[in-house]
């Protein structure tokens, strides 16, 4: 890997680059999906490639290839420089980067059980058994289970002398049951929807989440939803479970605080942000109990790493303190504009993409008490769990989320199940209505393995440490 990396780096510099960074990546992914006791999809993908990003004549260029012979590496490095020179045709000013320390390092995330050493048939048999349990429940016509594992070896070098090798293993898994009857389809998932829970850990995660122990419960809930009344259309007190708070944080905080988005660099795709660069230290994002951090150092978080893809060490930074916006997610290019250094959130989807600002683990810091305490403390309202759909406008203000299941709260107790729950709101008003966050015992880092951004589209693995939270006067049951 080193030979290839330095061949590319040296070629680009000789060809006219004033700055160059190279990532050589080898990766493996295994994905297993079982439906109704049958293996429906099995992905086992091994790949390698190189990504070369340069600055030449004050503009960016990038070229990548999976063809790793010497002539292709040289041609690709030269192409990166040619592309940068082409970019400079429209430049308004030279790209400037904030300073970064020269680093020589190796980083590996702690893993107890390497998932690629666990026999495939063991993984498959767990998923088959889980789907067997679920399909035995009345009206559960479809039961799914999946596991995903990634192993990434990444060498980063740049023209400032930094050389970092990282080895990262990630794991995830989950199950879903679909109750289907007379034109109604109701899904329940565990431990989360869209594939379950994901962490920067080994197979020990799969053992801890105990898929088999939860299969019966969620299947019964999927079945019960078919007979449940619709979530009423009203304005009420809303309690969200931790996994939905995670997605709420993701869409209405994580994306709007990306400084590239704030500066208009994502305008043509997912849009901009309601936040302006001058809002730091001023904008009231939410209520006084709202504290948000970006923390890439949390062990096990899906947004955790040793160094970002600009060679900046993982960090913990405050984003919202006591309800006031105090920070952004930055990289070397955007932090220079602020007169700061990068807070280390620049990552690329594999070797084939440029690094851009991505969420790390964006967390709602814990408050106090348990979910049980919070429900007891609520006279009337609705408790919603597990995301089903999401949508937010191009400035990250007006959102609407659908969930798999809800329970009515009456006099401090969960009562009947409600189907098709959803809620809508405007970001600062919604976070302004936050009046309780559960404590550390309920706090968990939820993994989101499919955060989309950029053109060409990139997927990032990010995390959100959250616990259940309560919001007042929320519009629910939009139909």
């Amino acid at each position, binding site marked *: 890997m080193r030979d290839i990396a330095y061949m590319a780096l040296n070629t680009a510099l000789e060809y006219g680059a004033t700055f160059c960074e190279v990532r050589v990546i080898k990766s493996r992914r295994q994905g297993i999906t079982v439906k109704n006791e049958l293996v429906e999809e099995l992905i086992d993908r091994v790949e390698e490639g190189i990504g070369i990003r340069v600055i030449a004549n004050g503009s960016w260029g990038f070229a990548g290839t999976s063809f790793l012979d010497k002539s292709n590496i040289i041609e690709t490095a030269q192409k990166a420089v040619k592309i940068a020179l082409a970019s400079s045709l429209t430049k308004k000013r030279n790209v400037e980067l904030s300073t970064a320390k020269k680093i020589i390092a190796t980083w590996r995330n702690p893993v107890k059980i390497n998932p690629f050493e666990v026999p495939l048939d063991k993984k498959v048999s767990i998923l088959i058994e889980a789907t067997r349990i679920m399909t035995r429940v009345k009206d559960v016509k*479809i039961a799914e289970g999946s596991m995903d594992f990634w192993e990434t070896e990444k060498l980063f070098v740049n023209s400032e002398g930094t050389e970092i090798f990282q080895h990262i293993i990630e794991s995830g898994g989950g199950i879903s049951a679909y109750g289907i009857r007379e034109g109604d389809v109701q899904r329940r998932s565990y431990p989360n929807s869209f594939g379950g829970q994901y962490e920067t850990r080994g197979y020990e995660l799969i053992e801890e989440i105990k898929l088999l122990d939860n299969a019966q419960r969620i299947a019964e809930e999927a079945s019960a939803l078919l007979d449940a009344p619709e979530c009423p259309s009203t304005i009420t007190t809303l309690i969200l479970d931790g996994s939905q708070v995670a997605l709420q944080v993701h869409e209405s905080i994580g994306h709007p605080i990306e400084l590239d988005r704030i500066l208009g660099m994502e305008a043509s795709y997912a849009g901009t942000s309601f936040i302006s660069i001058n809002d730091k230290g001023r904008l009231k994002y939410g209520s006084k109990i709202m504290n948000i951090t970006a923390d890439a150092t949390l062990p096990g978080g899906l947004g955790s790493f040793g160094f970002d893809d600009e060679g900046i060490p993982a960090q913990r930074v405050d984003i919202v303190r006591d309800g006031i916006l105090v920070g952004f997610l930055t990289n070397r290019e955007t932090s220079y504009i602020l007169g700061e250094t990068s807070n280390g959130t620049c990552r690329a989807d594999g070797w084939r993409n440029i690094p851009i600002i991505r969420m790390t683990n964006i967390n709602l810091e814990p408050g106090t008490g348990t979910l049980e305490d919070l429900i007891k403390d609520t006279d009337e309202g609705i408790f919603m769990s597990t995301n089903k759909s999401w949508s937010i406008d*191009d400035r990250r203000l007006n959102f609407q989320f659908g969930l798999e299941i809800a329970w009515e709260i009456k006099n401090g107790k969960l009562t009947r199940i409600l189907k098709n729950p959803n809620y809508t709101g405007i970001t600062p008003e919604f976070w302004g209505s936050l009046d309780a966050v559960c404590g550390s015992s309920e706090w968990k880092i939820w993994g989101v393995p499919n955060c989309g951004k950029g053109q060409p589209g990139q997927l990032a693995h990010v995390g959100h440490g959250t616990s259940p939270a309560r919001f007042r006067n929320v519009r629910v049951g939009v139909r």
Partner: protein
Amino acid sequence: MYLDSLSYVIDKAKGIDTECFLISNRRILTRFANSYIHQNVSVDDMELSIRVVLNGKNGKISVNQLSKDTLDSALERAIEIAKITPPDPDYPGLPTPAAVNIERQDYQIRDIKPEVLAQKVKEFIDATSNLNASGALEISDTTIAIANSNGIALEDRLFTVSLEAVVQDGDSSGYVYSMEKNLEDIDFISLAKVASDKARMGRNPVELSPGYYTVVLEPQAVGTLVSFLGLMGFGAKQFAEGRSFLVGKIGEKITSEMISIWDYPSHTRAIGFLFDFEGLPRRDVVLIDKGVAKNLVYDFKYAKKMGKESTGNGLPQPNTDGPIPFNLTLLPGESSLEEMIASTKRGILVTRFHYTNIVDPIKTVITGMTRDGTFLIEDGEITTPVKNMRFTQSILEALSSTELIGKELFRSGEHFIYPTLVPALKVNNFQFTGVTR
């Protein structure tokens, strides 16, 4: 050029059901924001999947190197995996060769230099007259090759150029999307003018109350509705599992009789490979004919399972999604956009939708926001720009309340396999459920 590598694997696995699928792509994307190029990339990529099936048991490995050592070890590993996976009782065998009937499309495959793309972007930016231009100009040159042990051996190449751009003028914006087979077919200056004019028209938007409105949906907005409808029920697997809105509805009227939707790979403006990802020829399928639900789309497995022929809608096997339409086309009507606006007493003109997601797949309800140009129509004229609004709406109900259909087809930027071809629509009783700030 890739079929040799695929044949090597097939020959090596002699006696075993084997399928190889290769996709190779050169993508060049010049991205701009704040009226300058801020990201500019070129990537050469390739992936080969080897699938073997032993007595119905699937094993599959994907690699991105083509050395003999890599192919040998990938084949060995695929066989190892197949040995330990449970058999699929519905395994239909591998498909056999079938004639490809659609004519090859007129791509002009060329190695376009980065400075040519940068110059085109500059033309676009300059033509926006100091407004804030953002977008992406993309060249995609993709080859797929597929071969199996039943004799399928096919290779095809697709070359497309696309421009997607947003032009901002303070608190408003305009949008354009164009995908063509040749760079010269994109008129950068005209597109810049369209987006700029709309951005200027949209300044100082007012807030409109949510509720039911007559809407004139420009083609990009219609593209969202049709593309999402395509995801929710035309596939044979979804239908067989009871997850399709078409369950119990085939042969019944489900939209206005003005509406006909096809999966239409032979359309002169369709873009896509000539065969599906199993190597079977793409075929035209009438999905909705004059409002009546007619047909589903099939891959090889679900065709066999349901006693039908494959329609050439197979994704790489095995997969969780099943077949889906690739070339959705809403057949055109006879109206112009101007006629739709002129015939509207009070309504809303929507340029496009943003961040749409499914709320209820059986009722085909989706939610999303308007974006990049939303205007109030009063007495047949566009009068006032309005703030972006959230819609929560059943697609089938919208297609049942359609009053006019545009006479010209456009390629939609929102699509899932290949571009959706859609006209503009005038729809009554379209539900908006919220407004943004």
